[in-house]
């Protein structure tokens, strides 16, 4: 199975991976609409910076995924492709996956009315190559067999 490989030496802290991720997970998949007119999705990757280091980190899609184990209602599950994804209609925002994720890559979206929403990399189900990888100008993110 392929996941996004992180080559931190090539990362220049441009945040284009986050931009691409937001657009890909927006309603319209249009950059202007995604950032200015629609409710902006949370980026599934997160860029960390500590000069001169920077790197973008996202879900590693564990074989024995602790987030799935911790999920109280099966919202966190493995899809047919083998990637760990959130069923948004089920997630209740209890943050047990945040508590469990060994990579710290599950984010909290608290904008829904009743239920919070755990947000994480879904390895772009509508694409052959994830949006962040395609957007990276410097091969700091590559889509490779693990």
């Amino acid at each position, binding site marked *: 199975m392929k996941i996004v490989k992180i080559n931190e030496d090539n990362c220049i802290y441009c945040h284009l991976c986050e931009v691409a991720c937001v657009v890909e997970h927006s309603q319209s998949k249009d950059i202007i609409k995604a950032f200015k007119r629609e409710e902006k999705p949370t980026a599934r990757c997160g860029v960390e910076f500590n000069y001169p280091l920077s790197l973008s980190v996202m879900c590693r899609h564990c074989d024995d995924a602790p987030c799935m184990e911790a999920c109280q*209602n099966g919202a966190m599950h493995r899809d047919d492709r083998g990637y760990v994804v959130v069923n948004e209609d089920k997630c209740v925002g209890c943050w047990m996956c945040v508590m469990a994720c060994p990579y710290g890559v599950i984010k909290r979206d608290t904008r829904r009315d009743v239920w919070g929403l755990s947000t994480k990399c879904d390895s772009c189900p509508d694409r052959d190559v994830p949006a962040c990888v395609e957007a990276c100008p410097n091969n700091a993110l590559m889509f490779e067999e693990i």
Partner: protein
Amino acid sequence: MKIVIIGNSVAGINAVEAVREKDKISEIKVISDEQTRAYSHPLLPNFVVGDVSRAEERFYYRERNFYEKHNVKTLLGRRAVKIFPKNKYVELDNEEKVDYDKLLIACGGKPFVPSMKGVELNGVHTLTNIKAADKLKADLPNIEHCVVVGGGLIGSKIAEKLAKKGVKVTLVELMRRVLFPVLDDAGADYVHKELKNLGVKLVLEDSVVELKGDKRVKEVVLSSGKTIKANSVIVAVGVRPNLDFVADSDIEVNKGIIVNDYMQTNIDTIFAAGDVVEAYDIVISQKRPIPILPLAARQGRVAGLNIIDSNVKYKGGFPTNSITIGNISFISMGIVDSDEFEVLKIKKDGEYRKFLIHDDKLIGAILVGNIEKAGMFNWMIQNRFDVSWIKDTFLNSDFGWKYFNKAFRVLRLDRKIK
């Protein structure tokens, strides 16, 4: 092979999934005294106040066709009353005998109800399963003032939920703070404030000794002598392993069913997992019941794999809890309140972070407000990671991968170290 599982919740379901990963042929039977398909226990307070109902998929632990898809026969609404290990069968409440080759006991916990006079009165509830939740939900229109006994996870959550619905709520807690084993004083202080903001009255360091009333509870008497007018009481003092039907069997029991590293009891054809067992706590280095959902899932999975002889060890666990009260989220893990260890803590704008370290290993943490990357600390506790060189960065709100040593970070993120 005939596999029988007593219990239809987290541990049992994860065992089924583990078995079926490799074994599509063995017969699996699941016995449960509950009629419902596996549901989410942590959602019961939400269920009571109507945030979620039986009609919603969100309420359930697995999809409707789970049993069919995994070729599982269910015996729902049936209670296992006795196990006969020599003849390898389980007797049900209708005297039916269910034969097994391998048995998994995953029947969970039951609410602990402390002795108090008047506990049989109408209006007195518990909240650990759907039956109790249904009863409380049906009674909800009658409830004006509710006394919640016990400020644990269930007690605090239902107090919050009822207060939001406009019910007058008094929370009575024996210790000096709510969520006693889960938080420290500084952490619990945030919960106290949130609950008070919602109108919950807190009575700490006190307990309920008597419930008064004719048919329905009218008044609650505390050990301090104080009385509270209330027409409902929810007892949420905690859960204990449900040992009813193993009590007079040959299965070794202490506080919970004793299991080895393979989730196997002293009888090698009988396994146990979840809230009913006492398994190894790697932080305090001894066996004890830790009734939390992620460990029930892991133990159930390990039991399932070993039922089909996969020889997988349970590495041990420790308590981890995540709860949101009012507007604040809390995550805690391991040992959270002790003077015996090195303590790092910081309180800043809307955030509290605390870490306990022993022999250069992280053994516990509290995160309040900012719970980002909590699981990275979970990993460090579970893997007895040497934190001596990185612990100074734990108090930073932006704690993350950038603070790790490069070689280690690359190996971890490439999944070369699990």
